[in-house]
């Protein structure tokens, strides 16, 4: 069997060596960071180093290890002094041995160090240049991360706009300015004569007419020449491509950011809710330093907690539902009405401005700007109205906040959309005016015209056509008289008059109806007005109010600061929404007004300063805290939504509308996107256009679409199944949690029954304490040696330990280190680690790989069993003491003699699954085949699993130490008698399981140890006469990691049990001591990641039954492994 296992191991090793290597690196890094290590252990390391340093491979390992220590030292919860010490030592070692290893390696590290320093300096410098970093940090330290998140978001938007500006600026605006036809040379670039006089008037400029209208700000200015300049820059093509690139870039950057965010926040992954805990432990924002902010934060926390309490209580009872429901319905109706109202108003205003334009030659300032003013007013007022309405609803504040946000978002979208639709209506009329007119004249009735129009020019709907004709008529007649019916008669009767009028209008509109420019103008205007309103609202609502509240509160009959006006709150959510809305406008208009992003950059800068000033001077943070980290993605999701919706109108315009005839880069084309096909046809080689035609033909497009759909479906299915497994695992966890509780009780009961144990334990504890404190392994060892020896001789003969065989092989590899025997178990479990893991390394080092293995196995257990089994028990490899080295031969010896193998992996609490034993018996060999699997699993898990492991580990917490540990400590080795008696006691006490008693006994012991959180205990199966001694040391590794507070660690140390090793005399003891030391070290380190458990297995029982039992054990373990494998796989997938 051993040979089989060897071969398997070997093959697996060779197969996945590279992979393994990687995974191990990863593993070890994580592990290193997780557990702690003491200075003393480092000393040992050094000594070991010295001895072992001849082996370059080993040295390399050591150096790597030390480097990892150095790299991760920051993450360890040690006091600084210790960190410094360890760091120094590690550095020394690295320096010393690296030089010895190779020169180049030394240089490499020196170079790396230098690089690190330089990059650090650079980073510091770069931070200086991050815009507003200081400002944001200041705000953050005053008002907490919530408020700061707004500014960070603003800055991020600023960054996006910078890029957009660069794109449009570099590829559109600059070329046009440099190489395009200069101002005044073409018709689209000259101001019509009748406008020239007023072109510089303030109100013209204000409404973006005059010179501004005929400038690079807007679409209409750009020339239609296919190539401009001496280099032949294809401006129209560039215009189109950049227009698309703006959206593409925005999408990509948004999605990337979202992906990054969701990777960062684990919270989104789980639905688990720790309402109270979070409110208690995570509520306080440690950044808050401003007294007022702190006060309001405190109040907010109290509110939050009260809310949670109320919620909790309300889960049981429900209040007058009817009233509530009717109120909510009412509120929703109100909201809907106001939404509809705002949309109607906007539409109406646009319509009116259109009519006004037609009617009057000169428009007043108000008339010119009423559209944007109205829109901005609505966006300002409606949210407050919604807030009032929301109070009717009496939702939970968080829900109401969500409702509020949703409503405001809908409002903003509604505004933008009604505006853009109204604009497009106008566009319809404008662009149809020119081409349609001839047809219109010839037809006597406008009704006919409506039919002919689609043919002539293909314009939207019948309705719009009618409106077009209407409006044309209205230029002649009064508006009031316009009716469709009348319309026709008027137009037919007064056709002559009509014609002349229309002709006039047409000549004028030859230049005018550049609808793209018009849309761009409107968007820019909207953006400007919005900015003005924002500034005004900040000044009025926040600043003035703040002043009033602060200075007038003395001379007022009530307390202004706390009662009515109060200070303005900084409403993060609303403000973020406003930013999003603003960005939406930019996206919507960017195609028609290439300078819009540039304008937005300016606007954002202004907003940044103004807002931050306002926040610092006159705002208090919102009471209802909008969770920052979660909201980040929420903001982004809204932004994404906005982007999509804002892209639609542009796309529609591009696809559907015909570009203006006399202005813009696409004039003269049927559709804007024709530029692409035109370019492909004219400027690319023939084959390319052919390819393009193939690619765009249905033959290709349809299958591609189908493929996409299938892909989407597939991914969705996978996501669903993952979710499902996720849920199942959670359920499993829960059930196991409850089982766990039961187990605790059982264990407690067991403890009570074996009071002697406690007595025994005490001395042990003390010893262990000492040892652990000192972290010196050596002291305890001699004493134990003596006691151990007796056991040893019998033990070693009888046993066939598979682990040993392996160790021997190991030993061979490693030049026969004494540690081999002990270590070997590890190896069996983790074949992969071997190569990496040079035996000579220090205890700690050698442990690492094991740990990794431990984690994995633990998980596997966890999969089936849940929390209890989560500790992985891995036989301990043994630490290598110098003393041990002499003993190297022994393991080999074993090898020869004893082929049988015992791989003992015990999850805690075997009892639970007594029925399994029967199953297992048939497969004694199992453990070996399973090993390779395990290793593979490890790798997988390493990659994917980090997170899971954490969560799993957590569940597994030890019960209260005080209860449990007493019985747990047995002295087997030293005091055989007491031991035996104890064992008996327990045995009898626990006799419930009948036939399986023996097995159970073992398990019980294990359980105890495991339950204890346990400290290192050696698990020995002692057989009386034959004394089959299997001593395996296990590292139990709780995946959960980290830590315990120092107090905890102390406990743990106390528990560390010096165990005697019943192996070869000297070597055994040595190994023991070494292992002890290592265990104690690790435990000292406060990180829990590393729990070493050394189980004591004692079989004092019948020798006859022994073999069978052993078989059982093996089979059990094997079984477990197998079972777990499948689970692991599932886990890893998740």
């Amino acid at each position, binding site marked *: 069997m051993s040979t089989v296992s060897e071969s398997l191991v070997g093959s697996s090793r060779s197969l996945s060596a590279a992979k393994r290597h990687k995974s191990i690196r990863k593993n070890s890094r994580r592990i290193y960071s*997780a557990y702690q290590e003491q200075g003393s252990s480092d000393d040992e390391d050094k000594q070991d180093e010295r001895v072992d340093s001849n082996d370059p491979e080993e040295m390399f390992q050591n150096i790597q290890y030390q480097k990892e220590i150095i790299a991760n030292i*920051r*993450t360890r*919860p040690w*006091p*600084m002094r210790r960190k*410094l010490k360890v760091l120094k030592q590690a550095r020394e070692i690295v320096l010393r041995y690296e030089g010895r290893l190779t020169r180049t390696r030394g240089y490499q590290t020196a170079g790396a160090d230098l690089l690190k320093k330089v990059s650090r300096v650079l980073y510091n410098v770069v931070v200086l240049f991050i815009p507003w970093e200081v400002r944001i940090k200041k705000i*953050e*330290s*005053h008002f*907490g*991360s919530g408020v700061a*998140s707004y500014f960070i978001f603003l800055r991020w938007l600023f960054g996006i706009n910078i890029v957009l500006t660069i794109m449009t600026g570099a590829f559109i605006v600059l070329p046009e300015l440099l190489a395009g036809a200069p101002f005044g040379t073409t018709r689209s670039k000259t101001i019509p004569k009748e406008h020239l006089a007023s072109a510089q008037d303030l109100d013209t400029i204000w409404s973006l007419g005059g010179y501004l209208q005929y400038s690079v700000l807007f679409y209409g200015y750009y020339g239609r020449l296919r190539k401009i300049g001496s280099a032949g820059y294809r401006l129209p093509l560039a215009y189109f491509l950049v227009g698309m690139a703006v959206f593409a870039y925005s999408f990509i950057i948004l999605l990337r950011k979202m992906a990054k965010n969701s990777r960062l*926040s684990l919270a989104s992954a789980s639905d688990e*809710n*720790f309402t*109270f*805990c*979070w*409110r*208690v*432990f*995570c509520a*306080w*924002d*440690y*950044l*808050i*330093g401003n*007294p007022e902010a*702190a006060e309001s934060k*405190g109040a907010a926390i*109290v509110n939050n*907690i*009260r809310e949670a*309490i109320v919620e*909790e209580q309300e889960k049981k009872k429900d209040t007058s539902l009817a009233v509530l429901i009717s109120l909510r319905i009412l509120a929703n109706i109100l909201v809907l009405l106001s939404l509809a109202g705002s949309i109607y108003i906007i539409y109406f205003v646009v319509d009116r401005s259109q009519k006004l334009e037609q009617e009057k030659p000169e428009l007043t300032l108000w008339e010119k700007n009423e559209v944007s003013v109205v829109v901005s007013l609505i966006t300002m007022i409606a949210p407050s109205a919604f807030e009032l309405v929301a109070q009717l609803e009496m939702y939970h504040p968080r829900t109401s906040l969500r409702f509020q946000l949703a409503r405001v978002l809908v409002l903003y979208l509604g505004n933008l959309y009604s505006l853009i639709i109204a604009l497009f209506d106008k566009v319809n009329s404008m662009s149809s005016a020119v081409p349609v007119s001839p047809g219109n004249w010839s037809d006597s009735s406008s009704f006919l015209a409506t039919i002919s129009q689609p043919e002539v020019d293909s314009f939207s709907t019948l309705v719009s056509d009618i409106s077009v004709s209407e409006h044309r008529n209205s230029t002649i007649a009064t508006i009031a008289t316009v009716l469709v019916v009348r319309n026709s008669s008027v137009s037919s009767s007064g056709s002559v008059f009509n014609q002349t009028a229309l002709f006039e209008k047409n000549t004028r509109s030859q230049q005018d109806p550049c609808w793209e420019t018009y849309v761009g103008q409107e968007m820019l205007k909207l953006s400007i007005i919005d900015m003005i309103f924002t500034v005004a609202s900040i000044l009025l609502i926040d600043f003035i109010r703040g002043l009033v509240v602060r200075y007038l509160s003395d001379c007022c009959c009530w307390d202004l600061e706390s009662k009515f006006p109060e200070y303005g709150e900084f409403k993060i959510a609303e403000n973020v929404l406003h930013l999003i809305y603003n960005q939406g406008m930019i996206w919507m208009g960017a195609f028609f007004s290439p300078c819009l992003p540039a304008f937005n950059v300016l606007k954002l800068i202004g907003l940044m300063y103004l807002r931050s000033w306002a926040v610092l001077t006159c705002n208090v943070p919102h009471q209802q805290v909008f*969770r*920052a*980290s*979660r909201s980040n993605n929420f903001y982004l999701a809204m932004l994404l939504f906005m982007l999509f919706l804002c892209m639609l109108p542009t796309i529609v315009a591009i696809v559907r509308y015909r570009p203006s005839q006399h202005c813009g880069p696409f004039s003269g084309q049927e559709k804007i996107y024709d530029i692409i096909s035109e370019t492909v046809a004219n400027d690319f080689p023939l084959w390319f256009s052919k390819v393009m035609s193939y690619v765009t033909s249905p033959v290709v497009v349809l299958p591609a679409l189908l493929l996409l759909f299938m892909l989407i479906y597939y991914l969705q299915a996978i996501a669903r199944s993952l979710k499902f497994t996720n849920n199942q695992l959670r359920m499993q966890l829960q059930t196991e*949690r409850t089982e766990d*509780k039961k187990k605790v009780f059982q264990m407690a009961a067991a403890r009570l029954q074996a009071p002697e144990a406690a007595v025994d334990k005490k001395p042990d504890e003390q010893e262990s304490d000492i040892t652990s404190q000192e972290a010196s392994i050596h002291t305890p060892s001699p004493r134990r040696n003596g006691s151990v020896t007796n056991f040893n001789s019998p033990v070693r003969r009888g046993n066939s330990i598979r682990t040993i065989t392996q160790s021997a092989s190991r030993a061979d590899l490693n030049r026969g280190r004494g540690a081999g025997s002990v270590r070997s178990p590890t190896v069996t479990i983790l074949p992969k680690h071997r190569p990496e893991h040079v035996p000579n390394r220090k205890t700690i080092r050698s442990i690492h790989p094991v740990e990794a293995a431990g984690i994995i196995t633990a998980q596997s257990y966890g999969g089936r069993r849940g*929390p209890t089994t989560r500790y992985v028990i891995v036989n301990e490899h043994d630490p290598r003491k110098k003393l041990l080295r002499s003993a190297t031969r022994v393991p080999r010896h074993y090898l020869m003699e004893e082929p049988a193998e015992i791989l003992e992996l015990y999850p805690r609490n075997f009892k639970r699954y007594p029925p399994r034993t029967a199953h297992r018996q048939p497969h004694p060999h199992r453990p070996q085949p399973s090993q390779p699997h395990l290793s593979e699993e490890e790798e997988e898990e390493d990659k994917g699993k980090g997170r899971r492991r*954490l*969560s799993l580990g*957590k*569940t*597994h*917490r*030890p*019960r209260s130490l005080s209860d449990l540990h007493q019985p747990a400590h047995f002295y087997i080795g030293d005091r055989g008698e007491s031991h035996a008696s104890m064992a008996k006691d327990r045995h009898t006490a626990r006799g419930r399981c009948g036939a399986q008693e023996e097995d159970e006994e073992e398990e019980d012991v294990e359980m105890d140890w495991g339950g204890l959180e346990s400290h290192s205990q050696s698990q020995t199966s002692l057989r009386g006469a034959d004394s089959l001694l299997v001593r395996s040391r296990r590292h139990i590794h709780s995946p*959960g*990691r*980290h*830590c*315990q*507070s*120092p*107090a905890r660690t102390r406990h743990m140390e106390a528990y560390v049990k010096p165990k005697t090793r019943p192996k070869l005399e000297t070597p055994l003891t040595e190994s023991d001591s070494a292992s002890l030391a290592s265990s104690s070290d690790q435990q000292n380190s406060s990180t829990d990641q590393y729990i070493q458990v050394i189980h004591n297995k004692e079989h004092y029982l019948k020798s006859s039954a022994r073999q069978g039992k052993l078989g059982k054990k093996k089979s059990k373990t094997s079984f477990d492994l197998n079972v777990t494998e499948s689970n692991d796989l599932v886990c890893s997938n998740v």
Partner: protein
Amino acid sequence: MRGNDLKQAWQRMYTMIGKEENPFRDRIVETFSEDGLGNLSFNDFVDMFSALCETSPRELKTIYAFKIYDFNRDSFICKEDLRKTLNKLTKGDLTPEEVTLVCDKSIEEADLDGDSKLSFSDFENMISKAPDFLSNFHVRI
């Protein structure tokens, strides 16, 4: 830093790091001091900021957060610890009944092993899912 200097140094430091409003300031200092009494050596001081700075890893922060909330340093957050935490946080605004309720509920939520107190792993499990722990648990100098 010992004795009277210390007090003054404290005041200065609190102001400097803008934490005078932090209800847990004493706990923070105690946690990071080696003697557990709140006397900080320079090393401890550096330690404190290295743990509370923005870039320190979540694991480390979790460890120290646990220590901070573990008032009696028994490696468990028991109800008493929770009560103290709550009282500091709310400055006594909650009634004792409310506090008790919240304590019970919190433990019920996060206690996975049923010992009616929070071990570190319970705590870590809970914290790792908290949406704003990372963003909240750091200080600015």
